[in-house]
């Protein structure tokens, strides 16, 4: 009887894999998992955006593409893109920045107090904002990258510090409650109903994408973010680059906060509150991995569109804030699950090795 290769003779026991056996080779990903990679994830979220917009416009009656809707939704979307880009840069280093809401609120206070509500001092207010953002980024970056502290804990702590500093800086009552007219006018500008803030947000996403993919410092930053050890071995000043990433992230956040303050006109101590979880959700559904690595600015834009449209739909349909928060949580969980699935995680029982 011929025994075909691999077949066992009748009655023979299967070979004991034993400790000397080589670990089983993982079979190449097949089907959906194979298709969920890198740029495909971007395609997935963009497709989801298109579907959601169409459903909103034609199914739910939210008149999303109506000029009046665009004028109210696009400023919020533009701000979310900018602060989510900031979060994306932080997440790209393998960290997370939970001090973003506090930074946004601080920027709002600086705009009011440093400018005194006048255009003449708006430039000075912007300088103060830039200095504050650089300082916050350096502190976060140094604590996370140089001292190797956990980013979640560090940024929670710095967020508290920033909140306290904001209250001390602002004082109990501010004599100025309106941002400078020039800033308010800029933030209110629109083209065809689409806010200039959205244009600025998209432009920054493009600049960031080019910076991370085309220019050498950006590519070094991506390398340093993806793996600090490998970057050091390759001769990169990984720590400096990653600290630089934190500074860049906070500066982008500062820009978003400045435009938000202009949009709101009367920023108060609640300015940054909505941006704690939402920025993380946007970055995750945009395809970023929370352990660090390449972050797609295009994915962040697509994620921001998805979340903004979803929240607008819930608002228009009279669902409460609680439902909106539940929706954010569900979207985050599904986004993480999709990412995990794409990277080969599987639900399986752990294999027990025979000794």
């Amino acid at each position: 009887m011929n025994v075909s290769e691999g077949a066992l003779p009748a009655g023979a026991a299967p070979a004991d894999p034993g400790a000397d056996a080589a670990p089983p080779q993982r079979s190449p990903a097949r089907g959906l998992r194979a298709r969920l990679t890198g740029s495909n994830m971007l395609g997935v979220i963009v497709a989801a955006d298109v579907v959601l917009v169409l459903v909103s416009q034609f199914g739910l009656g939210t008149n999303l593409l109506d000029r009046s809707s665009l004028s109210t939704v696009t400023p919020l979307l533009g701000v979310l893109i900018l602060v989510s880009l900031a979060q994306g840069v932080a997440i790209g280093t393998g960290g997370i920045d939970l001090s973003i809401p506090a930074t946004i609120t601080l920027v709002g206070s600086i705009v009011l107090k440093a400018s005194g509500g006048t255009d003449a001092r708006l430039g000075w207010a912007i300088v103060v904002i830039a200095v504050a953002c650089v300082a916050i980024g350096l502190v976060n970056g140094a604590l996370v990258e140089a001292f190797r502290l956990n980013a979640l804990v560090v940024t929670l702590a710095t967020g508290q510090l920033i909140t306290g500093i904001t209250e001390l800086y602002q004082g109990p009552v501010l004599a100025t409650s309106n941002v400078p007219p020039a800033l308010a006018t800029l933030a209110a500008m629109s083209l065809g109903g689409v806010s200039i803030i959205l244009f600025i947000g998209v432009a920054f996403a493009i600049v960031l994408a080019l910076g991370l993919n085309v220019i050498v410092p950006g590519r070094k930053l991506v390398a340093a973010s993806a793996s600090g050890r490998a970057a050091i071995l390759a001769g990169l000043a990984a720590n400096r680059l990653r600290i630089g990433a934190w500074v860049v992230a906070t500066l982008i956040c500062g820009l978003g906060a400045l435009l938000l303050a202009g949009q709101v006109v009367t920023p108060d101590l609640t300015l940054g509150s909505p941006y704690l979880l939402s920025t993380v959700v946007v970055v995750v559904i945009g395809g970023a991995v929370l352990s660090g690595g390449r972050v797609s600015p295009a994915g962040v834009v697509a994620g921001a569109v998805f979340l903004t449209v979803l929240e607008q739909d819930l608002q228009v349909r009279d669902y409460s804030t609680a439902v909106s928060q539940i929706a954010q949580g569900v979207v985050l969980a599904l986004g993480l699950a999709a990412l995990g699935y794409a990277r080969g995680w599987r639900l399986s029982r752990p294999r027990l090795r025979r000794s």
Partner: protein
Amino acid sequence: MKVNAETRRRTRGLAPGGPLSHLTAAWRPFTVVIGAAALALTAAACSSSSSSPASSSAAGGAGSSAPAASTVSDATVQKLVDQAFQADVSLSSLPATVQQALRTAAEPLTQAQLSTAYTCWQNSTCSTGTGGSTTLGIADGFGDNTWRQFTKMEIILQALHYKQVGKIIYTNAHGVLSQFQANIRSLTAQGVKAIVTYDDFGAAAVPAFAAAQREGAKVSSYVGGIPDAPTTAVANQVSANICAAGTAMADTTNTLLGGKGQVAFFNGTPGNPQGEVWNKCAEQEFKAQGGGITVSYEANTDWTPAGAQQAAAGLVSTGKPVKAILYDYADPLTQVVKAFEQAGRVSPALVTWTSNNALFGVWQQDQGTAKAFDLYYTNGLNWESRVSVTAVLDMLAGQSVPAQLTVPMPFVKAVKGIYTASLPGTYPGPSVLVPTALVTKMLGS
């Protein structure tokens, strides 16, 4: 693979024992300790509960007397009432404790007392200089806006009329329930016997209040009612009848719209009891008036500008022809007006509780233009805190004070001249009873 010298140099710091290891293994315990200390210091600095006083003289005792007999005339007091309510409300129609509180408020304070008030306002803890044995505690659920800061000053000014109040302690929970509860426990632990509060958390804070009253304190809440709170927890509440306010809003809207049209309800935080009550009563009144007015949109705003902007964006997107928005807080409404103007639409009529200088400014600016809209508002409600001060001190003195002091909250149509350009947008309006000189000082701080 050969490891060359260059690689060894680069990787030296990564290996245990290398020069850079002082930033890793050896220093980690110290960084943890430093981080923990920094966190603790931050918590202490940011905490709104005051530090324990050095002396134990903060223990409150029963106040023995009300302020000296009033020297101001009824006409002067009535003028103050007119200012407080921004409408014609007769002094004699008010509950006795409210009358007493406003009479006390009408008494002038000395320059020294006004200086003391400013000092107390700037600090969490202060001595009034009277040597009184009673400590007044202020438990604010969310003190981080101008309305709350002016209310704090109203409380301080009222307390300075009472010689038995020797110390004032202010706490701010920054919108965090656990912090609010801790603050009340802290006040109790410091022996504070007179507590006035704006409870942003409703029934959740009742156990903490009950514990304070078990220790002999008296608690009075102002503005934000705490439905179903027993008197064993909150001895007195000073507020408008929220249902009556909802009914009044509906009546005002009905008159404004001629009995027909769609309206929107904007509320604060989701599920807050205030909104639930006035919404229900307003809807009942609309039905009772013939049902021509329907509520076609409701949204929560968290009482923040961002929340109001989101709510307005949602309303604009629906395309519904809402003719009036009913809301229980004026401050964020400038965002609503702005959202409609950005969308190229005229703002619906606004019927709102409280006052806000920025809203008045926007309204006044739009008058006489195509963007003009109707505005109905109430007084700022800050002065209700003064009644709470009088109520707790009267109770500590053994006087009988009703568990509920209900004050009217008339809605007033905005007229030109309501806006004060020299004051910030967040100023709660002309019903604030803080002297002008002190307002200027507060805004310059």
